[in-house]
């Protein structure tokens, strides 16, 4: 496995999992403590999913591009969700 792919999987995957957790916390229509719990629960499966997705990309830089695309979408969802809440 190339360094680009491994870093996309682990580092990119970590930030995407964090963004996914925040997006879920932003949009779930339940109490804040429950949103925190569901978000935390989702973190590890999200990270695992992102690692596997990155490893299935056709190349190392393609994996990074894929991660970046997912990150942009999840961040937009999170920012919109928090904006609508406030």
């Amino acid at each position: 496995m190339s360094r680009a792919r491994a870093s996309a999987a682990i580092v990119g995957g970590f930030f995407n999992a964090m963004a996914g957790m925040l997006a879920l916390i932003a949009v779930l229509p339940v109490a804040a403590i429950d949103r925190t719990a569901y978000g935390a629960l989702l973190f590890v499966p999200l990270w695992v999913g992102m690692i596997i997705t990155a490893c299935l990309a056709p190349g190392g830089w393609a994996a990074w591009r894929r991660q970046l695309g997912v990150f942009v979408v999840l961040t937009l969802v999170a920012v919109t969700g928090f904006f609508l809440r406030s």
Partner: protein
Amino acid sequence: MARFVTKRLYDVHSAVGLSFGLLLYAILLSGTIAVVAPQMTTWAVPEARVAPVQASVDAPMRDLAEVHDIRDHIVVVELPEPAKPSLRLWWSDETARHAIDVGLDGTPEPWSPGFGEFHRRLHTNLHIPGPFGRWLIGLAGVAMVVMLVTGLVADPRWRKDRLVLRPRRAVRTALADIHKRLGLWGLPFSMVMALTGALLGLLQLILVVGALAAFEGDQEAAVEAVVGERLDPAEVDADMAPIDPLIEDARRRLGHSPRQLLVYYYGDANARVEVSAFVDDLGERAAATYSLADGSFVRRTPVSPDVGVAITNGLIDLHYATFGGTVLRLIYFLLGVGGTAMAALGSSLWVLRRRKSRGTPAPGRMARLNAGIIAGMPLATAATVLVAPWIARDASTMATFTSLYFGIVVASLVGSMAWPGFFSSRRLWAATGWLLVAAVALDMVRMGAELPRSVSITPGLATSYGGIALVGIVVLGVLRASGRNDAATRHGSAAPGAAVDDSDPTDVDDS
């Protein structure tokens, strides 16, 4: 396309296994020991080989309040049970966690972390200070989930071969079968352990971010939502109502034996005690809370009032098997042995594959490193089991265990690298088996005439003797059987074609 995905997932499985395999082996092995450590209390602490009696909580609480400033703290009281007959009180302040054990003679003694705590710390933070050890464990948990998922998906014949074991085929094929079957049949348990372990390891990190986001930066609101409504000390002295009758009252109200008390601000007018018990086999807890200023009943609550706390408690209960007794812990132990063997076989398979691809019959550096760690850690664990009942429990106990354990691991590693013929994997495993058997024999000799009485009044001791000796005998038996199998393969008495067939048809890489 499917073939490309399978091949790529197999590559991921190999790469992650190569990076995290030995670390996971260490974590799984120490976790397997840690889960039965409470049941081994009577083994590791000879003073605890006495019948459990109902110890009073009031006397040690009063003694504690006289010596230590606990009025602003929460004291956790772990009530005695057959496997752990002493009463333990512990609390944390800004500097450290403090604990005392109250023996059955009622004498408080400073708590000294020993055998169980050594293996628990090895499992939860690898003895690395600060949060970094926990984070590393969390990352290893994520790696384990990745390996479980990719290992299953990358084996297209897992349904067809779900019962296939070929012990008389070439070593690599036989080991690959065991690795895959352990992975498949232990998958639910391994997945739960990996997911909960990863979450517990990373919880501190992700909860801070998550809670701050959910509560829009209001840290106090986040803390209150997690730990419940906070009751502060009134800063007014008050006489304390006796706690022992409240425990009896809680037993009646909850319908189950209390396991733990949380004593808030003992000596203060706002002091309370929360008596909790497991109310079902799935780990659901309930608690009865009393005011200690007048002994009045305040409320009966599920300890898990919301999803957040319920999930955290659920993770802890599932991972540490705290929702059951000795039988559940033994089941966890056996499943843990399976998971540990799966990790060890995965690393060994990688070494065998590498040796085959290079066409070198002699073990290379990686093979020796692998043998030194995989056989060295059980040997070090067996040594800690052997010495546990013999060493004094004081402030230096943890240092003794640490030096012994890591000294043996390093010696095995150096020995395997420098003198692979003498420090062979088989010899190290044989030493492990003999150490465990010798540990039981030596302890029985030391007990002498006291042995029948101690075993009859402390069932945990008999379980420990049986368990430790059985593990040692199984290790020696497996070594003997595998030696016979190797000899049969060398002399051509195995199945036709087996001795020359070193390919693994279930490996996608070979197909």
